[in-house]
């Protein structure tokens, strides 16, 4: 079972077979999705009709509209990018502040607050979306009905989506950054103070650079999670639909290779982002 304990050859063979089967299971759906983005047929299924870039580049003249000429999908993509940007910014900032709060300070009720901080992890995403919808949208409704004030900010739309996503992504980025801060040797900070830095200077010159890899990691994670989120988003989205919701609506109408093209585009984009983030955190 471990290297130093004898295993039978059968056991090893079965184990290896299992590993192979597992990774095939893992890779198959994605490979298939990617490959059919280039099939010269109006429907993503066999037989293979030859290679084409139509599902990216066609401009609608031949009855096919590729991703790069599909205004609906492109504007949804732009909405998703905007949402992800704000979610990343807010979540990572909150994550830094929370990490310092929980790793460095001592105050009464810290344990309880820490548990509260973990709470969003054990709330299903749909419920997070629903509760924010009920509270803020309900508030906007009441304000409009009772006083005639229009709080459009709190109607389903981009703001609510950002709020809903921040609700749980902030917890994750807090955990990532706090884990790194925990490994920080406080003597380094003391050394900085000893060499004449003010506490704030010491924080910016010694502690923050140490946290940088985790901040990048948390940022990449927040961006990806926001971009890919569906469950919370779908409850809170208004007329400007983000990409996942737009794709879902398309998918219900029937699948076309344009969806494969978008999927592959997303996969490559996420892979690149993840790779860059990993590079950076490896260096740290």
């Amino acid at each position, binding site marked *: 079972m471990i290297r130093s304990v004898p295993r039978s050859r059968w056991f090893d063979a079965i184990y290896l077979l299992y590993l192979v089967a597992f990774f095939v299971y893992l890779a198959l759906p994605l490979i298939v999705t990617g490959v059919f983005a280039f099939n010269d047929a109006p429907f993503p299924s066999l037989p293979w009709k030859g290679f084409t870039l139509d599902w990216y580049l066609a401009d609608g003249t031949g009855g096919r509209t590729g991703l790069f000429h599909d205004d609906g999908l492109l504007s949804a993509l732009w909405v998703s990018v905007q949402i992800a940007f704000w979610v990343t910014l807010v979540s990572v900032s909150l994550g830094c502040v929370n990490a310092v709060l929980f790793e460095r300070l001592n105050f009464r009720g810290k344990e309880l607050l820490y548990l509260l901080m973990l709470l969003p992890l054990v709330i*299903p995403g749909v419920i997070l979306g629903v509760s924010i919808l009920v*509270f803020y949208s309900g508030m906007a409704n009441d304000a409009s009905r009772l006083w005639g004030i229009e709080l459009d900010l709190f109607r389903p739309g981009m703001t609510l989506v950002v709020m809903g996503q921040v609700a749980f992504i902030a917890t994750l980025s807090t955990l990532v950054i706090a884990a790194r801060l925990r490994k920080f040797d406080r003597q380094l900070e003391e050394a900085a103070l000893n060499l004449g830095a003010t506490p704030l200077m010491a924080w910016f010159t010694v502690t923050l650079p140490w946290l940088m890899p985790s901040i990048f990691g948390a940022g990449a994670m927040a961006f990806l999670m926001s971009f890919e989120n569906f469950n919370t988003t779908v409850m809170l989205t208004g007329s400007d639909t983000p990409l996942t919701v737009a794709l879902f609506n398309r998918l219900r109408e029937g699948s076309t290779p344009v969806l494969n093209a978008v999927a592959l585009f997303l996969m490559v984009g996420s892979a690149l982002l993840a790779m860059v983030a990993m590079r950076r955190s490896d260096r740290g």
Partner: protein
Amino acid sequence: MMKDSASRLSLWLLLTPFLLWILLLVLVPHLQMLRVSFQVRESWDTLVWGFDQYQNFFTESYYWRTFVRTGVMSLFTTFLTLIIAFPIAWYIARLARGRARGLLFLACLIPFWASELVRTYGWMILLRESGLISSWLQLLGLADAPVEMLYNDVAVIIGLVYNGLLFMVVPLVTTLDGMDENLVEAGYDLGGGHLTVMREVVVPWAMPGIVSGCIVVFMLTLGSYLTPILMGGKDSAWFTQQIFTQFITRFNWEQGAALGVLLLFLSSVIVWIGLRLSGQSLRKVMG
């Protein structure tokens, strides 16, 4: 004195963003949801207190049957994910070496660079009647007509397990990686066999990882929406779907809120039972 007030100030400076976040985005909305679930709409602008929504849930068998089904299937999916992921995590943490180790771990992460929607879509292309597996079976002569493998519970579970794997593998690898190999050797040295060492030494050690993986996978599964909707059949409803219907299609927020509270209750209770049975705490498992 100076120092004291300065540290008070910095505490409040750091505490304020946290409190704003946790109160305005988590606690207050959930309390409001709880409140709304106990309101009954008498006419379009009058609300009274009542238990009607919850009564509906228990009298309408469609509601609670879906509820139970969702819970049971989520538990089953979680268990299956654990069983599938454990040997993989074990291999990565204990048997693979050097580069292979890093590559295998990375390979486990790759599917999750795609969103749940993309993953589900991939499975649909594979499993549906005109899909790849059906075509392959026909090519191999194992089937003489297209085979529909989508729109049933097995398909849903395949998809759900797929979605959960990463969240099971990562905590398992982390805890198994931290285990001193000498512990396993001591287990054998004192006379234990493979199963005994697994049961008495490895599993107790990996318990925090197992519980944390199970909690996350369970939450994800219970709250998933896309996979059961897109891959499930006519009668494989998921509870999130009903919440969605109440809010988006019927505009019945009160009923939707009640269903949401029930789902939250179910998940909390099962997580709590899981922590209790395994003797773990949320802080140890998640933090």
